[in-house]
């Protein structure tokens, strides 16, 4: 009989090893899935993980995409990880991302065609504020009426999507767009554009913000009292209350921060890679960031690496769709497997597997 026995201390080795084992497990199971779909598993795995970076034909296009995709994932995941560490489950980052983009874009468009250099910073601030406000809805409902933040934040994603559709068809529609849905293109308006900063790298202001968020979160968690309180609340809620952590305040801070970062990510996206508000602006970054946060073990540096890896599966997934005809749903299943394996293997860092009869210990 196989039993799990709690370790007295979490294993350092397994804490580092689990993401690697999870990635390998995903490759094996994903390969199996691709084989069942009638594709060559080795080629599919190579197309996802290797070709985007090193294939002569595609790398020039896909390498910069790595940062473009990883930027918003990391920015959102950093915010989420703070809440997850404290046991505050914001599942609605996708909605906060959309609302942040809508608010920031709205303010920007109201100033069109101003050439002031303050337009983009203002839009960033309003974008963050929009995401924050959207996250405050589940936060206030939770702290006032004890509702479940998982459900409320998740359902608000669908509300945000409706607002997005409505805005791109109505309020924010480009007056010079000949009646097509979608706003003006920010890339063509210099004061509001979030351009590629260094040509050929994919680096834009959103990526810079993501790096700053990684450093900020790392500093807060390891050096600041607030970070200690977040970790304490997640690890022992009763001890946290005894230590004097105000649970209401902590919920507000965690949801607020993650909402603001998601909103900011949305704004950088709409002014940069996406270019405009459109019906299909929501691209699932807010949900994928949940996987990134856990794949990175809720640790800022881990999230940085996990964001890059996840971006790679996005780009590689697109490439394999295009090259091998793998269905898009299979790529999503592949990314889901990554989270599945991670959570399964994660047990090993806190438990050790014992084979033998129960009661003998």
């Amino acid at each position, binding site marked *: 009989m196989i039993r799990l026995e709690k370790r007295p201390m979490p294993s350092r080795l397994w804490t580092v090893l689990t993401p690697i084992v999870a990635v390998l497990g995903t490759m094996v199971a994903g390969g199996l899935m691709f084989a069942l779909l009638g594709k060559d598993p080795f080629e599919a795995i190579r197309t996802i993980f290797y070709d985007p970076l090193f294939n002569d034909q595609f790398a020039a296009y896909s390498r910069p995409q790595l940062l473009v995709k990883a930027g918003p994932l990391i920015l959102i995941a950093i915010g989420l990880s703070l809440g997850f560490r404290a046991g505050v489950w914001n599942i609605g980052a996708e909605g906060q991302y959309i609302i942040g983009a809508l608010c920031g874009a709205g303010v920007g468009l109201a100033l069109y065609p101003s050439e002031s250099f303050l337009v983009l910073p203002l839009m960033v601030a309003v974008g963050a504020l929009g995401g924050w406000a959207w996250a405050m809805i589940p936060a206030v409902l939770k702290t006032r009426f004890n509702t479940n933040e998982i459900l409320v934040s998740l359902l608000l994603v669908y509300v945000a999507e409706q607002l997005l559709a409505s805005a791109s068809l109505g309020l924010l529609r480009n007056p010079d767009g000949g009646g097509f849905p979608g706003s003006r293109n920010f890339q063509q308006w210099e004061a509001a554009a979030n351009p590629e900063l260094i040509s050929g790298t994919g680096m834009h202001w959103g990526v810079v913000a993501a790096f700053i968020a990684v450093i900020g979160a790392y500093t807060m968690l390891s050096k600041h009292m607030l970070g200690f309180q977040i970790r304490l609340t997640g*690890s022992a809620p009763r001890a946290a209350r005894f230590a004097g952590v105000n649970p209401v305040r902590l919920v507000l801070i965690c949801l607020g921060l993650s909402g603001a970062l998601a909103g900011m990510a949305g704004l950088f996206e709409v002014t940069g890679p996406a270019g405009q508000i459109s019906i299909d602006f929501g691209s699932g970054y807010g949900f994928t960031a949940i996987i990134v946060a856990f794949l990175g073990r809720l640790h800022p540096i881990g999230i940085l690496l996990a964001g890059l890896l996840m971006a790679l599966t996005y780009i590689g997934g697109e490439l394999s769709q295009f090259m091998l005809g793998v269905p898009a749903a299979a790529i999503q299943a592949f990314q889901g497997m990554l989270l599945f394996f991670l959570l399964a293997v994660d047990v090993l860092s806190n438990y050790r597997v014992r084979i033998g009869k129960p009661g003998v210990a």
Partner: protein
Amino acid sequence: MSDTLLALDGLTKAYPGVIANDDVSFSIGVGEVHALLGENGAGKSTLVKMIYGLVKPDAGKMTLHGDAYAPGRPSEARSLGVAMVFQHFSLFEALDVAENIALGMENPPKRRELAARIREVSNAYGLPLDPGRLVGELSAGERQRVEIIRCLLQNPRLLIMDEPTSVLTPQEVDILFGTLRKLSAEGTAILYISHKLDEIRALCDAATVLRRGKVVGTCVPRETTARDMAELMVGSTLHTPERRSTASEDVLLELRKVSLPAATPFGTSLHDISLSVHAGEVMGIGGVAGNGQDEFLSVLSGESLLAPGHIWVAGDDIGAQPPQTRRGIGVLAAPEERLGHAAAPDMSLVENALLTGSVRQKLAPNGFVNWSATRVFAEKVIADYDVRTPNADVAARALSGGNLQKFVIGREILQAPRVLVVNQPTWGVDAAAAASIRQALLDLAEQGAAVIVISQDLDELMEIADRFAALNGGRLTDPRPTQGLTIDEIGLMMGGAHDMEVAHAAQ
């Protein structure tokens, strides 16, 4: 008493890093009340778990009535006539007595039949119990009766009782002893685990003393002094804390009509508690577990906030102040539950030092944690309170209960509190460490602090407290000086024997 019921021969059990039982041999006769005596960590629990089939020995064998006995599971032990009443009850509060008893049986009879049998057994042994009452409404003593009757319904030949009196008032202890003597007279053997020597001298026919997993002696308790048994148990002469009364006239802490509604359906609410504690005084709060001790501590630590005006510390109204503000003023607390309440299990001792030390030790000026100062503080607690740990980076959950208790108490005392509230300060700590914790509490009072000790160990309270009050159903009795207080008076303050007097009279 000449027949041997259970014989243990060379039982050995090792866990990684510690030998819990080393070649333990002794035997229990039919109808004998046998005491198993030893400090916390001496290996008593492991030994009875082996007898009850919860743990399998590495070596050695047991015989029951001359037959080889090696239970693989508790149900096997029960079917062979070995029953056990645990220190911590396994009862469902939302179910009634009969339902709880039925859950513990292999083949429970029909409800009406079972209720009749419960009444029959409870009357026969002077343990009145209404089968239809919800367990959540019962006192700790009554809950224990549920556990005992559950065992008795299976007609055990050996009844193991693990520290049964820790949840009882002195009067309830008398009634329990009556029941146990009656069982013994009818031929049921009892293995009685305790470290309370007076009880053992009053009840037991024979005693086996364990120390660090080994049998270090046997004695006939009635013919041995408590002091001799204690020295056998501890292995050295005991140091009794020096007590000087240093209470002054100044009231340092004042509670004015403190009430707190229960947080959960079966929790305890506090009613109109008023109390003044003087500088330099040790105030002892007794009471059976679950009568409001946790709630009382939470009101003082700031985990439960009150309207302003109910709690005063030297002129400051702190009743509505959160924990960190109170720590700034000098009001510190150490809750009973070490893992998960007083300390975060998965965090290191350094981080746990920060948990309550951040304000008063100024470990996080302007919000950023000074980890090197925190480490120095944690290492000082470890050194001063003899916390056995490889280093300060070990997770709290890796420490033994007693060592973590020393850390928690030391962490608060070293912050030089003006008011200190501790719940069960020496629970699970070995005798020598318990004596040094008590001495530290007395020293703290001598330096002018007001110390409140909540404890279920009456001997401890009598040893160190200047005044004594009891919590009973969320109300606090009027405090009385401990000098000259008799055990009967204390028992009555704790609520007497609840409704057990009826049974007493009927006998």
